[in-house]
């Protein structure tokens, strides 16, 4: 992956104490990382930004520990563990309440996106965290199974089973909504 080769080059410079190189790394990866965390927090952009900032600061502190492999994958592994820590701190129900409110608040903006994508985001929000992370890393972020499993710190077989279960659940949810829409149009 060309983008990641460049990331690794900047990461090497940053490890030597070059703060400008680290700033480039942040600028290059912030959109994807914040997008990933936005999906993980079910659209809570403030929490996603806080987690992204904490992730980059931890990466800054541990940049010398970054070895081989995908730099973005390494960032995602930090971000995912930060997300899980936050999830443990906050009651899961409280996070879900926040999410429902956020999804409603964001509705006018979401209307601008395609209905299918909006449906996907709503359906994704109903999945368990681990399945949402597995599907996002593997599909939307285009990671290989090995990279996604490393980012989530789980075996590849477990990742595959989360992907499989997640897709099945999504299919059920989306099909159900499709049927409901058909009935609504007929009525």
């Amino acid at each position, binding site marked *: 992956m060309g983008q990641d080769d460049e990331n690794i080059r900047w990461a090497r410079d940053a490890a030597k104490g070059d703060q400008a190189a680290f700033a480039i790394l942040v600028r290059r990866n912030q959109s994807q990382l914040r997008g990933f965390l936005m999906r993980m927090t079910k659209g809570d952009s403030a929490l996603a*930004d806080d987690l992204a900032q904490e992730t980059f*600061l931890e990466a800054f502190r541990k940049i010398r520990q970054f070895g081989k492999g995908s730099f973005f994958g390494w960032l995602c592994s930090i971000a995912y563990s930060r997300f899980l820590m936050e999830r443990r701190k906050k009651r899961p129900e409280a996070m879900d309440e926040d999410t429902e409110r956020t999804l409603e608040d964001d509705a006018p903006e979401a209307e601008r996106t395609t209905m299918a994508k909006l449906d996907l985001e709503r359906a994704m929000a109903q999945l368990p965290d681990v399945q949402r992370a597995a599907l996002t890393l593997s599909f*939307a972020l285009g990671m290989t199974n090995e990279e996604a499993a490393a980012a989530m710190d789980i075996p590849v077989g477990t990742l*595959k089973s989360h992907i*499989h279960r997640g897709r099945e659940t999504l299919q059920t949810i989306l099909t159900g909504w499709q049927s409901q829409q058909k009935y609504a149009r007929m009525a």
Partner: protein
Amino acid sequence: MMNETDDNMAFPELDALLSQPLTTVADNGFTLRVMMEAEKHAARRKLMIGGLLSLAAFILSFLVPWAKLTDQIMGQFSGTAHQMISQPQLYMGLWITLGILGLVWYLDRLATVRD
């Protein structure tokens, strides 16, 4: 890029939907905020290292047998050196240094909390 899984063909539409890239998030000063925090962290780290080194030097100064050293090195001047070291002003100076370091650390924490 779509991930290769065993049952890709079961839900072709869903896979295409899932493979759509995530919505682009505008920077809007995010990089700047992260870098400001990173610089603060680097400055705090330097301050802590400086403080720890000063503290280590202060503690080590009690372990050095100054009287013996001054006797051997200074010879006839040892009395003068020994007198100097046993002056209470010197220890007051050390406590003042420690106090200043503590104050700097406290102010740094205060600034961090305020930020």
